[in-house]
């Protein structure tokens, strides 16, 4: 927080309450910080993919050969960070989540008793929540 803002807030609140006040900066938990970084990472990656697809579909500009190494580097970092099982889900989220009609392909989970459950990952937060359900520590040791 800007020091001038802090001074202004302290001055006006102290005047109103007729007593000194303290400005406390809230600390985000490490877990929440990591969640926010993860979600931002997924959002940025998705936006990059969308831009690339748009260039190809609307302007017929194919940058695949140019961009592929960058996406490959990020994919491999995801693989190193999360392990193969979670990487497969992240990869599904980026590349297989939508079908040709633009609808979401659900993940099908089959329980031990054979009951099928459809999981729809609509947002990066859904993805994070699903991954954390599979491995609660998937970001914590990094």
């Amino acid at each position, binding site marked *: *927080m*800007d020091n*001038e*803002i802090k001074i*202004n*807030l302290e*001055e*006006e*609140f102290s005047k*109103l*309450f*007729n*007593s*000194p*006040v*303290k*400005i*406390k*900066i*809230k600390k*985000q938990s490490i877990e929440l910080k990591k969640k926010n970084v993860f979600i931002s990472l997924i959002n940025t990656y998705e936006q990059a993919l969308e831009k690339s697809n748009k260039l190809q579909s609307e302007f017929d500009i194919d940058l695949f050969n140019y961009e592929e190494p960058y996406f490959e580097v990020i994919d491999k970092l995801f693989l190193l960070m999360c392990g193969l099982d979670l990487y497969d889900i992240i990869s599904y989220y980026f590349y297989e989540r939508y079908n040709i009609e633009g609808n979401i392909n659900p993940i099908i989970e089959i329980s031990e008793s054979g009951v099928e459950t459809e999981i729809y990952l609509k947002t990066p937060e859904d993805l994070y929540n699903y991954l954390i359900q599979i491995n609660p520590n998937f970001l914590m040791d990094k």
Partner: protein
Amino acid sequence: MKKTPNIIFPDYSLEGIHNVLSNSENKKVLFESIFNKIKNSYKTSKKEIIVCDIIQLEASISISKVNWVKALQAALDYNVSIEDYSTCTQINKLIKDIQNG
């Protein structure tokens, strides 16, 4: 315990902050928060109360225990100004309870 109020400032100049804190609804919410938080904390080991959050800045405004009576006095003055004498009585009682330990 009541939820900590969030105060929104359109800008953080002295004048901007002053305008928001002069708003009668905000004053009411802030002094209510002071009264309720101190009432719920003075018998505990808490050393401060959080009066309000400023979520835009991820910050909070707190008052240390040594200043609780002063803050309650300000809350009392405010309630006198709006002629809420029922709340005045409760604040007066709380001040006395704190002073009597």
